[in-house]
């Protein structure tokens, strides 16, 4: 009986592995079918394949491009003709930011309404930024400011990384 038990065990293990693979494949296929079918019939469907680029997405309903090239942002900075708003967290801002930039964390924008937003001129040139090609904090902040009536708002995509890479002026805790 003991021998029989041990000789059967590998069969059960293989049976279990086979079951696992079959069921996994079936669940995945079912999910793909459901996902595709529901997307086909729902009114607010999205394309199955789409080109994803942050610059392409930074377009307002009026067709205005929000993204500003690094060169233009650097020129405005050099002319002292722009306010940079850092949409990242205070901790990230504290570790380093574009020189002269003001911290306006998107996740707690309400707390900064009086201390930052109320002090800004609605006609002033404003550039919002965060970090990473896909970071949407700066985009969200820019749209928010536009809704508030700020007329000249731009977004510098992947700003913090690009700014450092091009050795443009920054402020860090050690500087």
């Amino acid at each position: 009986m003991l021998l029989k038990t041990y000789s059967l065990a590998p069969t059960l293990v293989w049976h279990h592995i086979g079951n696992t693979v079959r069921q996994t494949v079936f669940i995945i296929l079912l999910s793909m079918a459901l996902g595709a079918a529901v997307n086909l019939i729902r009114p607010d469907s999205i394309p199955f394949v789409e080109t994803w680029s942050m610059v392409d997405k930074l377009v307002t309903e009026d067709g205005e491009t929000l993204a500003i090239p690094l060169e233009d942002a650097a020129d405005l900075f050099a002319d002292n003709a722009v306010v940079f708003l850092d949409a990242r967290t205070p901790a990230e801002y504290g570790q380093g930011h574009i020189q002269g930039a003001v911290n306006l964390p998107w996740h707690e924008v309400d707390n900064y309404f009086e201390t930052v937003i109320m002090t800004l001129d609605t006609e002033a040139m404003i550039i919002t930024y965060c970090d990473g090609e896909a970071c949407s904090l700066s985009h969200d902040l820019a749209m928010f400011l536009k809704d508030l009536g700020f007329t000249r708002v731009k977004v510098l995509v992947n700003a913090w990384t690009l700014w450092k890479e091009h050795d443009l002026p920054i402020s860090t805790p050690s500087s």
Partner: protein
Amino acid sequence: MLQKKSSHDVALTIGYHFTRLVMSGVFIYASIDKIIHPDLFAQAVYNYQVLPGYLVNLTALILPWLELTLGTCLLINRWMAGASALAAVLMALFVGMILFNLARGLDISCGCFSAAPDEDPVTVLTLARDILFLIFSLGLVGLMFVKNTRRVGNTHKLYP
């Protein structure tokens, strides 16, 4: 012939049902908002910056349904071997993604339980929560293995 279950088996049975119900709730709850807002979830997937652009929407369309399907399997106690293995693989992937983005210092939305970009930012707590769910899922995989390979010599069925 019916055998009386040992206290060890009772503990395994309780652990099995508790774990599968918890993970079922996690996956079903996580899928709802993403299914309702595929466009927002696609943005969350894109923000992770780990997939090529052409896979972003496909992932955003299929992943929530995968979560719902396997969550339902866990809930109704069917196809458990596949569902528990998939749960463990998904949780391992999610933990990996969160670790990767925390290491890169990206400030992005988790997209774990809400598709909205302003909610649920990725933090160390998110990582700890997902590691706990990964441990639960791996436990379920182990319990399924024990259940399906321990029948020989035992007349009663473990955690029916």
